[in-house]
């Protein structure tokens, strides 16, 4: 088991280093493992149909304050990964804002169920992770990957997740790595599962209609994931920076 884990890490590291240096100017999608990715995607879609979608539909039936509270608590927990990444990206202002939010919401906001920090002027900012930090440092995304259960990723983002699980995520350290009397290993997996269900419940209609109207749903999800990561890494405001006017100008020639 440990041996195969080491092999996976080695392959990912090689991919990470090779592709990150060669993809600097490349704009084309690098789907090096497309056949495997498509198979994993089909597996994930089947899993979604029998598990995640029905659970998300059930979750939707919960009263709105319960869903909002759950979403707030999970968001509060994600600050444990966001804050170190704010610091690594040199964004100390955001790190300060998120640290204050974490303290206020964990205490006065009762483990993050409520968001009094927002009322006090500490706004909710975008989440950050190690994949984004690598991206901000100029590391290329590498090949596109579809991970079982987890879904779309890239070599860079998968490497970022490994960093989280190797000490970068305080919540993971508290629950899975350390034996404390307060938390169990399962708390981490429950929180991740709930995060997935919460995300799915918020995107039920969007996801369903995209699936219904796509001629290649795999390619649609891949495009949306890569655009979203690009936007987050470049900290673009929600606007049209995803498209250059020159893309459209060629139509008028």
């Amino acid at each position: 088991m440990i041996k195969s884990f080491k092999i996976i890490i080695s392959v990912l590291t090689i991919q990470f280093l090779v592709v990150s240096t060669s993809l600097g100017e490349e704009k084309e999608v690098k789907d090096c493992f497309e056949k495997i990715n498509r198979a994993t995607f089909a597996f994930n879609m089947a899993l979604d149909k029998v598990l995640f979608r029905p659970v998300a539909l059930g979750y939707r039936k919960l009263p709105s304050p319960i869903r909002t509270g759950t979403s707030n608590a999970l968001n509060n927990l994600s600050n444990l990964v966001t804050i170190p990444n704010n610091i690594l990206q040199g964004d100390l202002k955001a790190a300060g804002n998120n640290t204050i939010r974490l303290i206020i919401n964990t205490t006065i906001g009762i483990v993050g169920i409520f968001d009094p920090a927002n009322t006090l002027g500490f706004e909710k900012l975008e989440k950050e992770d190690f994949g984004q930090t690598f991206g901000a440092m100029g590391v290329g995304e590498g090949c596109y990957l579809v991970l079982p259960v987890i879904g779309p990723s890239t070599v860079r983002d998968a490497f970022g997740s490994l960093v989280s699980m190797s000490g970068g995520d305080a919540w993971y350290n508290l629950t899975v790595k350390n034996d404390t009397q307060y938390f169990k290993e399962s708390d981490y997996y429950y929180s991740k599962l709930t995060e997935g269900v919460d995300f799915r419940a918020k995107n039920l209609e969007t996801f369903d209609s995209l699936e219904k109207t796509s001629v290649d749903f795999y390619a649609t999800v891949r495009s949306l994931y890569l655009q979203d990561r690009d936007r987050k890494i470049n900290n673009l405001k929600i606007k049209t920076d995803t498209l250059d006017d020159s893309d459209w100008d060629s139509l008028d020639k």
Partner: protein
Amino acid sequence: MTNLRIKIIIVTLFFFINLNSNSIANVSSDFINDITSKASNILSSQDTEEFKIQELIKIGQNSVDIDGIGFYTLGKHRKNLSDDQKNDFKKIFREYFLKSFSTRLVEYKEAKIVVISEDVKNEKYTIVKSKLLATSNRPEVAIDWRVYTKDPSKPLIRDLIIEGLSLARTQREEFNSIIVNNDGNIIALFTSLKEFNNK
């Protein structure tokens, strides 16, 4: 005296340039306000789904540059098309787009969009920023509209950017994937679109 004359000319020019850009901006905002309120009325009505789809298709036909988006989504493959293939594609894509557009929209029963501001990028494009208001089931969604204003009397939508994700770009990458996975054969894309249209 000459300096004064030059200053007057410059001020006058600025006045007209500014007036012109303001009028384009207003045209775009009013245009988006108009179509979103029409769509919102259709979606919240008690009419049948078939009727709603027909009404949404009419909006799409009048307000979207379907041919422009179609050719944009072909990207680099556009150059390899013959004139006959271009005409075929226009027909197939138009049908695909209107079906896909109306099917996506009809899912939203409560859709209230508020226009926030606009950004005149140049004489050809204005970006209208708006938000789809939150409901108890989904959060607020930011939607930017790329409006083609080459003819200010007939603005047309060329792209929707939802939470920073461009639908035109997504469509282009989807089409490219189909073509690439069929060894560059563009007919495979035509076949996929026809299959979708006939579903």
